[in-house]
């Protein structure tokens, strides 16, 4: 569905990510992992079209997206930024309805139909109770869910999420990721998300792109590519991988930093 071919991206003449290729199938959850400063955000901005590709192509449904209009792109790709506080106290339902912007005329405002789609998105994430709340007054976890709802209201094929779990407490991290995986599975939406936690990739991702230092890119299923050596190289931390079986019988590999006494 989404295909990145030999893409190089960066700012101005500086190349941050070099010659990266991967693709994304419907319903797939791809985790983008890497230490600070290796170009996760740069790659994201390039996929979103905020930064120009320095080389390569990005194909969506087999078409080169560089010629697509903003509106057309926004109907296929939803972007979930990190939860933030805008300067004005919009209602949650209005924020979510903003996801409909690409589907309505430039000079018009959303119809009842658009609001209904926004309401459905809230309901899918189990946060209908936030409908009338003020976006600036709800908690960080709720805000992140609202932003996901907004992206779902775009009715996209692909969701791009920038560190959806940063700034969230332990419970909210898991809740958000559970919702994301469910959305991917149920609605066959492909998801790319960045995270700082290798365990999130190990627990949720179906595929992983590891960005290492010096433009090193590794792609593959998380339990294959997230190795002790990678963690050491990328984060300069000694970590050990443990295979466990949780009480529901699911086998997962988790990484645990080796802590000295």
């Amino acid at each position, binding site marked *: 569905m989404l295909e990145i071919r030999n893409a190089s991206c960066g700012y101005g003449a500086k190349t941050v990510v070099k010659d990266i290729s991967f693709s994304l199938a419907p319903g797939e959850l791809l985790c983008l992992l890497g230490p600070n400063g290796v170009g996760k955000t740069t790659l994201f901005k390039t996929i979103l079209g905020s930064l120009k590709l320095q080389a390569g192509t990005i194909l969506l449904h087999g078409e080169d997206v560089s010629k697509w209009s903003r509106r057309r792109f926004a109907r296929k790709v939803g972007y979930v930024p990190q939860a933030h506080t805008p300067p004005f*106290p919009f209602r949650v339902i209005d924020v979510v309805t903003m996801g409909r*912007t690409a589907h309505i005329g430039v000079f018009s405002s959303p119809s009842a139909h658009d609001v209904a789609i926004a309401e459905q998105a809230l309901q899918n994430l189990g946060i209908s109770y936030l409908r009338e709340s003020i976006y600036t007054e709800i908690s960080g976890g709720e805000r992140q869910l609202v932003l996901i709802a907004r992206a779902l209201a775009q009715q996209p094929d692909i969701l791009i999420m920038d560190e959806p779990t940063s700034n969230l407490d332990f419970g909210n991290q898991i809740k958000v990721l559970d919702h994301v995986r469910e959305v991917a599975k149920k609605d066959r939406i492909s998801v790319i998300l960045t995270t700082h936690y290798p365990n999130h990739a190990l627990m949720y991702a179906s595929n992983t792109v590891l960005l290492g230092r010096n433009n090193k890119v590794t792609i593959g299923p998380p339990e294959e590519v997230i190795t002790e050596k990678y963690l050491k190289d990328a984060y300069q931390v000694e970590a050990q991988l443990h295979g466990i079986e949780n009480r529901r019988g699911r086998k997962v590999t988790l990484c645990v930093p080796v802590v000295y006494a």
Partner: protein
Amino acid sequence: MELKKQVKGTMTIKLLMVSFLFLALFLLSFSIGRFPISPDMAAAILLSKILNIPNHWNPDMETIIFQIRLPRILAAALVGSALSVSGAAYQGMFRNPMVSPDILGVTAGASFGAALGMLFSFSGIMIQVSAFVFGLAAVGATCLIGALFAKRGEPGLVMILGGIIIGTLFTSFVSIIKYVADPYNTLPAITFWLMGGLATINIHDIYAISAPILAGMAVLFALRWNLNVLAFGDEEARALGVRTGITRFAIIICATLITAAAVSISGIIALVGLIVPHLARLFVGPDYRYLIPVSIVLGATFLLAVDDLARFLLAVEIPLGIATSIIGAPFFLYLLFNTRKGWI
């Protein structure tokens, strides 16, 4: 569904409320002034243009109503709504509640244009044209700075900094003109213009400025949903499908046309463009679908009220720009301290 209808209904009622307030003040304003005309008499004179009402007033009254008070009242309403709506649009677009319509230098440019016109003894109309043109020119210069340095930082911030620089530059040009101007005639005229006021308005001024102001307002209203989305920042707005560059440009053009037209007949009227959008947001929330119309009506009401006070409060008329500041500042502080958090 019920809830949604309820919200929409509440907003409509609120808009009707401010409209009614404006209408009441509009009619009342015809009786305010040195020459006493009772409200019912004023209403009768006004209606006599449309209806056939037996003439029971003296012709002076009719002259005062139509030649003096009507243009002034219309001017106050137009200028007030103009400054408020552009302030509201800019605050959202720059994502900054401290922004006012003169942020890109339009007022400073217009002041320079007017001062220049007075220095060269232009006619009244030409002074207005000069103010209007230089107002646009100043914003043009700011946009140029914005375009040149856009790559170096966040576009909104670059524009604001550019506006501060251009504004300072034009303000110093005004000082140069004041410095060389004839201190007996030109200098007082310039100083008086800079204080802002509507004392010399005639009906032709109204005709001249209504076109750009109403057209600009119509476009801003059409862009109301995009303004909502822009409040979340350029990157998100783009990801949601807004063509941010051209939308931003359209908003700047409209707000500049509106403000330059208003300032060209009124001079500098401080605070209105900052306070009224806040007042409107306090009343109907940040949603531009309601904020734009309410800012327009509330802005007209606010400036009309202040102008009425400026006309009759003291034996001498207070320049309007001074009155808006003196009345507006404490009023704004009161609002800041007495309302729930997060309303900005």
